[in-house]
């Protein structure tokens, strides 16, 4: 951020935190619409073929990733750059594992509930949208990791890590809803 000596200007972190909250609220509406579409099209029906075990595994992975991302933010606040990078790396690894399992799940799913069925359409749309967001989260974490390694994350940039982690955790929380309405209900 350029340091312009002049006008009234709240701190960088406050500004960005507010903007991120707005964006997350907007994203929540996106998933809200998708979830509403699921109930409009399918009522409370669920495909028997959905692999609930895999769903539970995916949920555990993301919950772990939520924890490790939380540790990364804490490390950033404490100024422990090494720990922060480690936790970021762990979080990203869990994210990649998650995506890999989604690919496995999809390739099995294509046979059981193809996209040409209403259930299949909704399933792939919602999990696909979620995975896309996870991918964006991965990109953000990777960028933070790179910036930290090149020493471009200074004292004043704790917010950047917190922001990236907040977005990541939002995507994790969305997964809990996805899991509930696609696997459990």
């Amino acid at each position, binding site marked *: 951020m350029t340091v312009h000596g002049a006008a009234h200007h709240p701190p960088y972190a406050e500004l960005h935190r507010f*903007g991120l909250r707005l964006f997350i609220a907007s994203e929540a509406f996106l998933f809200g619409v998708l979830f509403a579409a699921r109930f*409009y099209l399918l009522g409370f029906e669920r495909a028997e073929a959905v692999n609930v075990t895999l769903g539970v595994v995916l949920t555990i992975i993301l919950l772990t990733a939520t924890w490790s991302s939380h540790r990364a933010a804490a490390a950033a606040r404490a100024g422990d750059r090494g720990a922060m990078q480690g936790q970021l790396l762990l979080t990203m690894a869990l994210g990649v594992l998650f995506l890999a399992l989604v690919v496995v799940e999809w390739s099995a799913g294509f046979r059981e509930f193809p996209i040409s069925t209403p259930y299949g359409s909704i399933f792939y749309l919602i999990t696909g949208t979620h995975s896309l967001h996870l991918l964006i989260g991965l990109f953000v974490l990777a960028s933070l990791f790179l910036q930290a390694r090149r020493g471009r994350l200074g004292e004043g940039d704790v917010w950047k890590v917190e922001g990236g982690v907040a977005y990541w955790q939002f995507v994790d929380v969305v997964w809990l809803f996805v899991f509930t309405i696609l696997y459990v209900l």
Partner: protein
Amino acid sequence: MATATPQVERRLGASGLPFAARGLLWGLGGFVLGAAVVAIIRALAGVGAWRADQAIVVGFLFSVPAFVLGVGAWETWGRGWFGLETYEYDPPGWRRYFGFNLDHKVIGVQYLVTFLTVFILAGAVAMLMRTELMDPGRTVLGPASFTRFMSLHGFLMVLVAVTAVPGAFGNYVMPIMVGAEDMAFPRLNALSFWLWPPAILLLLASPLVGGWDTGWTGYPPLASVNNLGQIFYALAFVVGGLSSIVASVNFLTTIVKMRARGLTWGRLPIFVWAILLTGVLSLFFTQSVAVAVTMVTLDRIVGAAFFEPLLGGAPVLYQHIFWFYSHPAVYVMVLPSLGVMLEILPVFSRKPLFAYRWAVGGIIGISVLSGVVWAHHMFTVSALSNANAGFMLSTEAISVPTGLVFLSAVGTIWRGRLWMKVPMLFALAMVFNFLIGGITGVFLSDIPADYQLQDTYWVVAHFHYTIVGAGIFGLFAGIYYWFPKITGRMFDERLARVHFWMMFVGFNLTFLPMFWLGLNGMNRRIADYQPELAPVNLFVSLAGFFLGASFLVFLWNFVVSWKKGPPAGPNPWGARTLEWQTSSPPPKLNFEGIPEVVGDPYDFAPDAPRHAEIEVGGER
């Protein structure tokens, strides 16, 4: 972290290409890459490498980020993601408009010029449509091309209506009005603009693949079975929607967090309130239209079943999702312009904005209610279902907050001293036009009357009265009002008056008879009609050409005055809000010092304190 350096500029000079050109190149590369990815995946899956619709969708989705990086986001932003140093794009002269510039004033001008261009193009398409409709039977277009041109006109104009006023004035004027030196997130701001050129170019290219024929609403199943152009429409909607969301995060943060000291909510200029609520609407509703058109696209390109009845899908679901966005979008089109209107009326009446609190309450009320009225577009889906009654109630309830905007408008001019300069003419015309638009909308909200009126020219007339009569008139009101601020020059008053009267008379002569046409059996979106309706249609067409000609007068004045108009000075209208308390055009950081708001923006009493003091060279 972004530091202004001349390096980027030099690099530009070396290549001789403005960044916009490099963006197109990178965008093309991105497209090829995306299409190649599809081809490889298809080849691996053994289903034949080439499939046009899939290649276009993925190619375009790759080309947009590539384009944005190419126009300069790479240097100003992208490098930072990899921990590399970033530069600001800030060349002198005309080049500054052709790259990823972070100055909100540059971005405002980019929006203004881009969407004026789109407006003129879409208006030219309207001229073509009215030529076809001059008499029954075939005139110049066959029914197929008519339907496609109608769709193109409708969608381009919707984009103009949604984007032009917040894009141009929300960006240029609003930050100055709140006393900020720029928007909260300059890079997001530039991103929101640069997402538009790919979307617009895509739409302009859509006739090459036969366009699309669903109108701007894109209802499936028609949208699932027609030309490839439907995909262009969907992609443009998604990318434009992303731009809207990004822009609204920026507007909201700027207004909430960056106001000058002393600029309390009760002193906030009404235009800023309008932009604030517009931002709220875009932020929460835009995704839903992206979801709707994405689902149609998936039905088309991967055989999904969302709206395909034969596969168990539900076509009506689309309409719910679509209108859940698109009714609030109607207010995204109109609220900023109403804000412009209420900004102008006090200045040229030299009187405080009447019932300021009621007006703010009206704008908020409209926004809140607009989220619960969507199904009024769907009364005829299942005409007698009980849910319709609820939507009739919520829709008619919106007339109350809308009425408060009128309260403020007529209360402001009453006992004012009406200085009839051109911005004032436009603002007064808006009161008149929007009154007709609003009242005729009440007929549509009434279920029994809607039985006859739905999908007829009554609807066409009604929404043109609101969206052109208020939205686009507000765009021109704003252009004339802020032209001296943006360009530092004054426009030709005489030509501007000619433009106003041609536009006002032409507009009313064009659209007023359409109410009658709708009642008398002319349904909308048709290339042909019953011979009995010929005389009125001929009249409408001729009036439409007159309306179209008014914009030639405008264009001439706009271009010539921008280049050669006499200097306007900082405050030609004697207005009080902050943008008039700095030079025209304002300096890079908008003010020579730190503005502090100390008074009301609309207090025109001779002994009133100023709206704001600017501490020159002061330290906080």
